[in-house]
């Protein structure tokens, strides 16, 4: 396992994908820093994290998600196409050790990119004169780790695709399709259903305007219902689970932190880990039975 981990990490750190990902994250962070500087004066930790989470759900999660699932979707089939898998597996290593090592190597590459981007973001905040407290650093780190869990699950989902589709190009296409489904389409449908349900269950439903989403979203049961539906019907989507967790960073109108959000939506946090294990377990099951030629 260690062998393929080292091989994959060496590969990951030398390929352009990783650094494109880091650069893209920083590009998305730039408007955030600008926003903090121009509109918020000297923001609190809550202000910083609130702004970052806003950027995350709108941009970083989407972009990084695509990169991660695409990275994962060529892990096995590309190796078969190039024939490097025959070299690797002719050495005294097991198939499960080989896959898990490569997965770990890819995941650590992503984590390094995320940490690098976060560190540069914090340095940029300090450079523009925003005080970066210890609490802010902890919150940014926790956020990065949460994001990492989502990316690790998307990598695993990509691996599952790469274990079933032999052509790496077809696999990339399928991965992008799956990502749009779990990031955009399914959460969109669920949100619409929740909005309708909220209106229906509201005591004032008859007087509500169906198009007035602000009113609906402000209803106390809307967030709970949305979390409930995302948990039940989008449990396989890491981006949906991260969004649910990030919805719970506030308590009584005050920023309460990532740890608080994780505690409040622990099922979603557990789902992030469990579904990663499910995807990688299925990949491993398939990989152990495959003819790798």
């Amino acid at each position: 396992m260690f062998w393929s981990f080292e091989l994959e990490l060496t590969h990951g750190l030398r390929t352009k994908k990783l650094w494109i990902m880091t650069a893209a994250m920083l590009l998305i962070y730039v408007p955030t820093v600008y926003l903090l500087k121009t509109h918020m004066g000297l923001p609190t930790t809550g202000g910083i994290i609130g702004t970052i989470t806003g950027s995350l759900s709108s941009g970083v999660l989407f972009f990084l998600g695509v990169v991660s699932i695409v990275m994962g979707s060529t892990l096995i089939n590309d190796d078969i196409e190039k024939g490097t898998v025959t070299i690797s597996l002719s050495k005294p290593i097991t198939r499960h050790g080989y896959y898990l090592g490569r997965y770990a190597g890819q995941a650590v590459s992503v984590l390094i990119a995320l940490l690098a981007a976060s560190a540069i973001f914090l340095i940029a905040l300090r450079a523009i004169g925003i005080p970066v407290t210890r609490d802010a650093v902890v919150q940014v780190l926790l956020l990065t780790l949460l994001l990492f869990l989502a990316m690790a699950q998307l990598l695993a989902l990509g691996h599952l695709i790469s274990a079933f589709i032999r052509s790496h190009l077809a696999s990339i296409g399928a991965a992008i399709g799956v990502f749009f489904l779990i990031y955009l389409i399914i959460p969109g449908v669920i949100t619409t259903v929740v909005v309708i349900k909220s209106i229906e269950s509201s005591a004032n439903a008859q007087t509500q305007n169906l198009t007035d989403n602000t009113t609906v979203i402000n209803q106390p049961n809307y967030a709970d219902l949305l979390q409930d539906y995302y948990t039940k019907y989008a449990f396989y989507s890491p981006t949906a689970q991260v969004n649910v967790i990030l919805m719970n960073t506030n308590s009584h109108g005050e920023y309460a932190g990532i740890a608080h959000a994780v505690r409040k939506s622990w099922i979603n946090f557990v789902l992030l880990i469990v579904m990663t294990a499910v995807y990688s377990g299925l990949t491993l099951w398939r990989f152990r039975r495959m003819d790798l030629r």
Partner: protein
Amino acid sequence: MTAIIIEDLKKMYKDVKALDGLNLNVPEGRIYGFLGPNGAGKSTTIMSMLGIVRPNSGRIELLGKEVFNDGFSEGNLVKAKERIGYMPEHATLWDFLTPLQTLDIIGLAYRIPKMERAKRARELLEMVDLWEDRNRKVGKFSKGMRQKLLLVQALINDPDLLILDEPMNGLDPKGIAEFKEIIRRQKDEGKTVFFSSHILAHVEEVCDTVGVIVRGKLRLEDTIDNIKREFLERGGYVILVETNKPVDFTGTGWKVETRGENRYVIRASSDVRERVYDVVSSQGAKILQMKVRTPSLEEIFLKVVE
């Protein structure tokens, strides 16, 4: 001891029988040439031995370890692979690594200590004239250079069993000569080399035993000398005779073809040169030229494949 034992190995790719009850025995210390037409099952056999392809049933034993018996024993396979070197037919090495890094990471898979890995990598790269290119990315290598690196990566662990799948593809004549020398050296050191190729001249020159696989079954397996002798005894002797006037070979029991004026091709099951001389002399003719053509491995191979 036997280096490779394969018993009744079967492998289906969907509806296609790739291996149909293959049996194979490769004694230790031999250079074994594994021959067969395209699609005969050579690569499938090799990949099955290494666990890269999953056979449906049968038994495989490598260097005394039973690695497959209707299912793989991962533990035994890993232990056996510690003593095996493999050079695949169609493979690229990692383009982002240099030859030195490639051999280092492959040596790491065998848990060879770092200092020893570095020493061995240098020896091997010097052996195939790649030391000067040790810091160039493999992605920039020519096909011949990659082929050499593929060979030396298979030697990094000083294997007791070296498995080579079409190893001389893409090599220039000098490279081929070096390659043959490396293979012979392995034999001198008491190692076993299992070597598949479609270039029969190479096999004939290097191997002492050959096996011919056709449609997933072993059709022939013996030493090259024995195979040739047997082939000759089955009517494989071909004698070319040229006389000064026509000769009648009726009643000799040989198959005789006339090729041009007073030129004959005689096929017999033994060396009948003396009898040919007698027949020709008894008819008052003289032999101008006579030679025995020994069959090439290629002829035997084609006969077996047919």
